[in-house]
């Protein structure tokens, strides 16, 4: 039996305004969703061209969840987006050319070619880079929230995880600590229903992942992760509640991973009719229709946004391709502090 609250869809432009977004903001959200998908589609092309070796991970179907949450974050808030959350990087302002450079292992990627793929983040934009062990990020976000609490800063940490990650011990440890101290952290579960080949019924036994929140002493909410406005509204509520001292919330965004775990995986284990059913809820198409029906988005506006995104992506790929390879001489850099690093007031 479900315990978590089920979020309502957002009906009208008036409701959106009440939640804090005006019409221009909505067009930005739409643009960010298009850039998010566009970066991954172009990245996939680079992969097929052999410019990205190894594998390539996408978040198709998760654009609304990622962009919706990131739109609700404050400038000084921090977050730990995962490999389905390209929309968070885009919304926070990471330039697409640097993402392409990262994919190709170039020196101008956020990790300077030391790591590839979506193992990246720009800490200047409040983002903390994920590791493959996704639930390992949750205690880290909780640590950020504890620091904000101790310093009495009005900041919130947003911690992403998936329903697969929900099975591991560090998820429990992070949430328990956050609940005990009522810390300013919001847990976002990207529940895309498949952890590689493992379906939800082999991963957890509650109806929703968010049902667990009650056992940690905070609220759980399930939201349709293909509805960017519903995601935004619930994330905004949770973030502002945390900022106001109300403690954590677990927001579960329900989506379907529309592609394989990575592009080498054809997802043969996902029933075809499941894909067909969820394809009807494509988050971008859904929001586009909403904008036309509720915010009078015109053909001209839509064309202008689409063309602008195309130009941005083309230019970004060109610029990324000019980025140099990392110098092998930098192989050992950055493992330990240098003497210069130690020459700071903190160490004197």
């Amino acid at each position: 039996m479900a315990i978590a609250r089920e979020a309502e869809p957002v009906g009208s432009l008036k409701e959106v305004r009440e939640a804090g977004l005006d019409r221009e903001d909505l067009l930005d959200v739409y643009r960010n969703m298009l850039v998010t998908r566009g970066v991954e589609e172009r990245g996939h092309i680079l992969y097929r061209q052999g410019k990205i070796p190894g594998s390539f991970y996408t978040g198709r179907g998760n654009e609304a969840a990622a962009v919706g949450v990131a739109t609700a974050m404050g400038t000084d808030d921090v977050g730990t987006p995962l490999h389905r959350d390209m929309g968070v990087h885009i919304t926070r302002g990471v330039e697409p050319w640097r993402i392409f450079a990262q994919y190709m292992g170039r020196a101008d990627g956020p990790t300077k070619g030391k790591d590839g793929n979506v193992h990246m983040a720009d800490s200047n934009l409040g983002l903390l880079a994920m590791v493959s062990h996704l639930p390992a990020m949750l205690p880290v976000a909780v640590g950020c929230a504890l620091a904000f609490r101790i310093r009495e800063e009005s900041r919130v940490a947003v911690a992403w995880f998936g329903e697969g990650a929900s099975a591991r011990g560090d998820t429990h440890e992070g949430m328990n600590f956050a609940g005990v101290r009522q810390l300013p952290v919001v847990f976002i579960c990207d529940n895309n229903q498949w952890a590689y080949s493992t379906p939800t019924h082999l991963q957890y036994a509650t109806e929703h992942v968010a049902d667990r929140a009650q056992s940690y002493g905070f609220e759980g909410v399930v939201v349709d992760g293909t509805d960017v406005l519903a995601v935004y509204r619930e994330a905004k509520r949770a973030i502002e509640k945390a900022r106001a001292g109300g403690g954590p919330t677990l927001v579960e965004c329900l989506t379907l991973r529309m592609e394989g775990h990575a592009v080498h995986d054809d997802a043969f284990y996902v029933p075809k009719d499941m894909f067909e059913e969820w394809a009807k809820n494509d988050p971008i198409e859904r929001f586009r229709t909403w904008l036309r029906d509720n915010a009078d988005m015109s053909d001209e506006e839509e064309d202008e946004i689409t063309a602008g995104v195309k130009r941005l992506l083309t230019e970004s790929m060109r610029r990324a391709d000019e980025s140099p390879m990392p110098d092998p001489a930098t192989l050992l850099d950055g493992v330990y502090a240098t003497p210069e690093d130690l020459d700071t007031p903190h160490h004197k």
Partner: protein
Amino acid sequence: MAELTLVEAINSCFHHELQRDDSVMVMGEDVGRAGGVFRATAGLRDRFGPDRCVDTPLAEAGILGTAVGLCMAGWRPVCELQYDAFSYPALDQLITHVGRYRWRTRGGMEFPITIRMPYGGGVRAPELHDDSPETYYVHTPGVKVAIPSTPSDAKGLLAAAIRDPDPVVVFEPKLHYRTMRGEVPEGDHVVPLGKARVARMGSDLTLVAYGSMVPLVERAADALGGDASVEVLDVRTLKPLDEQALLASAAKTGRVVIVQEAPRTCGYAAELAAILAEKAILDLRGPVLRVTGYDVPYPYWQIEDAYMPSVERVVDAARKLLQY
């Protein structure tokens, strides 16, 4: 004999061992329906049922802890950890339970657990999919460690691990899962733990390696061909080590270069060098040299070749030692 890839050899071992002994079972993330992300367990769930090929939740510590309990009830679990670095969350259960339960029961219970994982780099994978963590395991009391370098040994060492009464960790060189083919005996095929393999006979210098580094040092031996007679020793079992084979080769050639992919400090090569210093010092004509990875997290693909021991680095070390 059949010609199989390394991962096919592992799969054939599973089919044989699960057929042979109905207390053997496989568990791990994605091992059942998907047959494992590298397909090492393909076909097991359909053939032996979901109780002997168990898809677990995504929880590595839970997998090893559950395996300890399964042993207490008489099963012989074989745990797949999806990648080398994905074993780190399970180190707690490995060190606190897997490695010491026999000792804690004063031999009253046995824990025939096999833990296997793909390891190593060279496949252009992201961070935490390329590590060589064998030293953590070798350093854990109560745990045996094997690393095959050929399809035949991949089958034979895994069979030995499954039949062994103690916990055995088997690292499989993922670089060679599909790129290496070789003759593999059909049916029963066991390579005993604790026996090294002389991959190539020689008299001037010994190259010692294991797993993914064995084909590399064989290429280095080819490159040195005209200049020196090179012996290649494939360690195969890191614990228990075939110390006799190591000392015999050192006594014969008097020159030893040890090659490991893992970071340098306190790596397995350091242990081998210490044994040679203790027991072979009078046989040696020069210092024991190491060619290793660096003390840095494994880097992404554009610079991973700068990290990996190369034929050139091995040849350089060998020439230096030959001219010592």
